[in-house]
């Protein structure tokens, strides 16, 4: 059964190739269903492989399948091979599982878009790259997937590239990720230089015993790569802008799967971090500070997707906190539950945007509970999960992380708890603004663009029943002139994934219940061995910490309810401009990096290029010319002077030979 592992990435690849050739002919919605079917098949294959792996005993749960030799150059040998172990199969399962649901949702969401088939081409290519990333058995193949998902992320953020903001957001994501990729590449050079192989199993075994400075350098460089991909300080700036992409993309790539690649990489290299404890502490602090930093920004955003984007950064920060604390199983646990509830929240937000006719400003929503019952019910499940209310999944995973953080350092735990408070606060704020309160879309002035109104044709519903116009994603053009529109529930093809994800978000905690024998941790244990932190706290302390986390979550929710439901404090007071503008970090980068960079380039173009580069070329030419005009004097044309020169030369050589021989 394990031999089927190559099918897991091969199926989305097939989907990609078929859609690339025949996507237009298949059209809307068949292209989408084909892509979804490929993902579903990949998920089923992953389940089969999972059971195959279950059939083996603890330490024997490692299986390598080599397809062919990729690079063979001297002592440098890289195979295209898959490493099946509890970690990679867990990743593959949730990537394909959540991916299938989001693909299905996207069939409804993207319905009517001109580039519908192309969207699924990219989506399947993304799934293939992501699966290569997690299943590969060496750093280089992971890097291939790493770059593949980066490229797909770029394509999909800029999917509506006729919007200037989407085009520039794509570029921003790509360039920011380049910085991280640089770290990844240098780390690979260093690994190969140190242990002479890039295959995970031998390389990690050797690196576990490497000198601390080598392990530290490799760990830091790989963390730089992870920070770029997983949007950690200071490289997080691309993720909020990435919300320009279609909402299924935000859910799949920028919340559930791709952005967790950095966490996966850190978990994969756990022996390196075990050998470099100071790097681990550093990662924990970067993670927890990112979590806090992003959570503060999320408290003041008005765009429904921006809140979720900053929330994603914050939750990724938690995962890095777990990694830095040595709680690798908790990191994966939170990654999986986060994939469930954040995909749910994003898809719910997409459904809201869809139902509100491309409105994204939460301040123009409200009271949608009545109009969109399924969306609001599932969104509320997601809200309870992320806020950390038991028994929903987020509580268990977050509590697991906080417990391990407390064991490492109470300071880390305190910052993490403060972040949990903010998380509950901003999510409650979002839920209240969107689903409760007055129906502000009735009164709020909408920007009118009459010229473009009715530009979008009406589409046939894709699934039975409900009306759908998912293709009209241009907020100005869509329904700008409809003064008295009504929000509507999304078609069933979009609500079914929401319901499934809501069930998963509610019950995801079962994967690793602390009093249920922590099955996920037990399952992953062979991958980590002694590098996994063993929490020494007693059961009582654990209970106190869990209660504190719960109380914090409730407190955060109540504060938000006081402000946004009962209006005890003016909203403007708790949404300072500096938070709305995300601590002015973009402006800071603009001033400190973009402007000097531009000035430097200007200087290089106008001064350095003109004077030094051109000067060097012209200088060589005029040097030769001047030298030639001096030397032409020698060429007198008098035969006898040439003869004299020959004679003098001969004498000189003879004299030299004589002097030397003396």
């Amino acid at each position: 059964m394990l031999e089927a592992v190559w099918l897991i990435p091969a199926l989305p690849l097939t989907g990609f190739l078929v859609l690339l050739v025949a996507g237009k002919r298949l059209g809307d919605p068949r292209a989408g269903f084909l892509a979804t079917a490929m993902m579903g098949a990949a998920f089923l294959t992953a389940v089969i492989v999972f059971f195959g792996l279950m059939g083996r005993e603890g330490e024997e749960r490692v299986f390598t399948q080599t397809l062919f030799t990729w690079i063979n150059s001297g002592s440098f040998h890289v195979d295209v091979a898959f490493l099946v172990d509890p970690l990679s199969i867990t990743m593959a399962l949730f990537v394909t599982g959540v991916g299938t649901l989001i693909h299905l949702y996207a069939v409804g969401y993207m319905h009517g878009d001109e580039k519908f088939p192309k969207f699924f081409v990219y989506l399947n290519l993304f799934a293939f790259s992501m699966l290569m990333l997690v299943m590969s058995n060496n750093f280089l193949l992971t890097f291939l997937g790493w770059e593949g998902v980066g490229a797909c992320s770029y394509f999909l953020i800029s999917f509506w590239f006729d919007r200037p903001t989407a085009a520039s957001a794509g570029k921003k994501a790509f360039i920011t990720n380049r910085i991280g990729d640089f770290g990844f590449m240098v780390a690979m050079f260093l690994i190969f230089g140190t242990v002479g192989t890039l295959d995970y199993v031998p390389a990690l075994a050797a690196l576990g015993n490497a000198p601390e400075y080598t392990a530290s350098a490799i760990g830091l460089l790989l963390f730089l790569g992870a920070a770029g991909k997983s949007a950690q300080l200071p490289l997080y700036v691309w993720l909020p802008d990435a919300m320009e992409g279609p909402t299924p993309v935000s859910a799949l790539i920028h919340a559930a799967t791709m952005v967790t690649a950095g966490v996966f990489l850190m978990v994969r290299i756990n022996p390196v971090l075990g050998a470099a404890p100071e790097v681990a502490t550093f990662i924990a602090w970067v993670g927890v500070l990112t979590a806090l930093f992003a959570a503060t920004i999320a408290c003041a955003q008005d765009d429904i997707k921006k809140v979720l984007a900053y929330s994603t950064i914050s939750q990724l920060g938690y995962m890095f906190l777990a990694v830095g604390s040595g709680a690798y199983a908790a990191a994966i646990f939170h990654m999986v539950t986060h994939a469930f509830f954040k995909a749910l929240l994003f898809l719910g937000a997409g459904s809201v945007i869809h139902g509100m006719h491309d409105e994204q400003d939460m301040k123009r929503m409200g009271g949608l509970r009545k109009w969109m019952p399924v969306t609001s019910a599932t969104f509320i499940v997601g809200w309870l999960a992320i806020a950390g209310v038991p028994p929903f999944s987020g509580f268990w995973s977050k509590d697991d992380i906080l417990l391990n953080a407390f064991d490492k350092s109470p300071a880390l735990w305190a910052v993490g708890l403060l972040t949990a408070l903010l998380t509950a606060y901003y999510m409650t704020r979002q839920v209240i603004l969107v689903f409760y309160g007055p129906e502000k879309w009735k009164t709020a002035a909408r920007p009118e663009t009459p010229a473009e109104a009715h530009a979008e044709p009406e589409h046939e519903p894709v699934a039975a029943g409900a009306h759908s116009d998912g293709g009209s994603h241009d907020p100005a053009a869509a329904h700008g002139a409809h003064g008295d529109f009504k929000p509507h529930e999304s078609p069933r093809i979009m609500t079914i994934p929401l319901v499934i994800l809501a069930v998963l978000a509610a019950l995801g905690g079962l994967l690793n219940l602390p009093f249920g024998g922590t099955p996920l941790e037990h399952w992953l244990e062979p991958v980590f061995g002694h590098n996994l932190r063993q929490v020494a706290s007693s059961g009582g302390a654990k209970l106190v910490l869990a209660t504190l986390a719960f109380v914090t979550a409730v407190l955060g929710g109540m504060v938000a309810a006081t402000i946004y439901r009962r209006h005890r404090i003016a909203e403007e007071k708790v949404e300072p401009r500096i938070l709305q503008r995300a601590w002015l970090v973009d402006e800071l980068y603009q001033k400190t990096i973009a402007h000097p960079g531009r000035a430097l380039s200007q200087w290089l173009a106008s001064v350095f290029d003109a004077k030094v580069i051109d000067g060097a070329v012209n200088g060589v030419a005029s040097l030769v010319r001047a030298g030639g005009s001096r030397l032409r004097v020698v060429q007198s044309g008098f035969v006898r002077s040439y003869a004299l020169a020959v004679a003098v030369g001969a004498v000189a050589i003879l004299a030299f030979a004589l002097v030397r021989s003396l």
Partner: protein
Amino acid sequence: MKVPGAWYLALAAALFCIGAVGLLVRRNVLVMFMCVELMLNAVNLTFVTFARMLDDIGGQTAVFFVLVVAAAEVVVGLGIIVSIFRRRAGATADDISFLKG
């Protein structure tokens, strides 16, 4: 009486110097040409001398090569000189400086 080898070498050196000085001081192309021949044959003489002194056939072999090359060179050189005489009267080397840089 056996003539010592050094005498031959001295003669060859004298001939070579006469040829070299002649090449440098005379302006007539034909005479310069003869001086070159003189130098070549001076060298030939040293080759032969050494061949006898060292009892090595290599030196005499080299002389044959030099003679053959010199003959070829004479053909070319005289051809050039004749073509110069066709274009102008007299043959003064310093007047023929078309290749001045």
